[in-house]
């Protein structure tokens, strides 16, 4: 096991407001880390620091050997090894599902159109959407869009996958199809950091559960154990709140 992501006393401020405090966290290759916590506790910010959508403001964050913020000019190299899935999908509206998925391979990996389309077709098949490859995002349901978005992120063959509340914008009956795809991705052994309120995903696919509270990591442990007997009152309250 080797560390792929290492937060060393990391802080993140927006102007005068510090929203992440003294984060120390090491994530090894192959871990499936589930990040939970109340709204505003800093989950998205922590996730976005990993691929430099937010730049850490104190301490040091090492992702795949690149030290942030010292080597922030190399942020593109980090991003080329990290796939991200957003709450609101953010598929490119002017491209078909196939072209959305082929985008990364073509632009980042320099594949030809044909090669990239082969990769994309393969991935669309894996997320169960090979029959929708020529549809535009607006012609797909939320669950289908999110599965395309997962395929798009996987298409560059990243070392790390980040998910920021990937099912929160979906109707309950559409969540399952997305969660199943995520579980399949986790089973492939790719390192994942997942912000979600789906405790079923945490207990089924998670190898580690982090509970964030007020910009700090308040709990860190095995999902099954933490969910069965949450040690702190804050975590108990939170789990009750999300209906677990």
């Amino acid at each position: 096991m080797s560390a792929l992501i290492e937060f060393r006393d990391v802080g993140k401020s927006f102007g005068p407001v510090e929203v992440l405090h003294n984060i120390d966290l090491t994530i090894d290759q192959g871990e499936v880390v589930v990040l939970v916590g109340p709204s505003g506790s800093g989950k998205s910010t922590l996730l976005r620091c990993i691929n430099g959508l937010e730049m850490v403001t104190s301490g040091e964050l090492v992702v795949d050997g690149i030290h942030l913020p010292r080597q922030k000019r190399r942020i593109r190299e980090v991003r080329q090894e990290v796939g991200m899935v957003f709450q609101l999908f953010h598929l490119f509206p002017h491209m078909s599902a196939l072209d959305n998925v082929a985008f990364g391979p073509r632009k980042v990996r320099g594949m030809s159109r044909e090669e990239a389309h082969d990769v994309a077709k393969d991935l669309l098949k894996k997320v169960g959407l090979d029959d929708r490859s020529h549809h535009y995002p607006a012609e797909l349901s939320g669950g289908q869009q999110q599965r395309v978005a997962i395929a798009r992120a996987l298409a560059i063959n990243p070392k790390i996958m980040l998910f920021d509340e990937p099912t929160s914008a979906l109707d309950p009956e559409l969540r399952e199809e997305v969660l199943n795809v995520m579980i399949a991705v986790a089973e492939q052994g790719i390192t994942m950091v997942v912000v979600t309120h789906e405790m079923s995903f945490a207990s089924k696919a998670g190898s580690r559960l982090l509970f964030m509270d007020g910009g700090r990591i308040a709990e860190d442990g095995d999902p099954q154990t933490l969910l069965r007997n949450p040690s702190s009152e804050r975590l108990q309250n939170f789990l009750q709140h999300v209906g677990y």
Partner: protein
Amino acid sequence: MGFEFKYVVESIPALLQGAKLTWYITIIGIVGGLALGTLAGLMRLAGTSAVGGASYGHFRWLAITSQKVAIGYIELIRGTPIIVQAMFIYFALPMLIEVTTGYKGIRFDALTAAIITIIINAGAYMAEIVRGAVQSVNKGLVEAGMAMGISRLQLITSVIGPIAFKRAIPPLGNQFIISLKDTSLFIVIGVGELTRQGQEIMASNFRALEIWSAVAVCYLIMTTALALILKFMERRIKII
């Protein structure tokens, strides 16, 4: 003395000559203006989150300078009348070049001055249109592109550009029509465009009603043609 159609018919060849020149100035002017406006609009946004976030190192300095140059250009053009801009380019610019560089003999003909004026004038307004359209692109889409580790240029050409362009078409169309009508001002530097042709015919036969009606119809036909071209373009670009 009613409306006598024969004066309209008589004026057609000369008016067509003028309309051709108007169309010529307009097309070169708006194509050039679009290129200049896109450049200035993007410079105006350099280093902002709309085009992929902050730049680091030397690029930060470059981004700030680009922004300032673009703002200066846009404000200068928006703050002065186009007729003054035309006069300046036609009469004053050659003098300015002579005084500052000592180089004599740069003098644009009236047509060149007219085209340059439209390019520079339309470019400033189009820069603001481009800026607005780029800023209107969903920030999440920009981030989705950035998160893949593509370059800023790829981000602009593959993600932001196509989406922003579709949004920009209606206001750009507006500007195209304004620029077409602005060419009538070049009567002051003696370009034989449509309005000037009308004026000259009018001066020889004094048939104001017939001639200015015919001139107006010619402009209407050209603005309608521009609007149709834009409609067509808008429909061709497929963003659902």
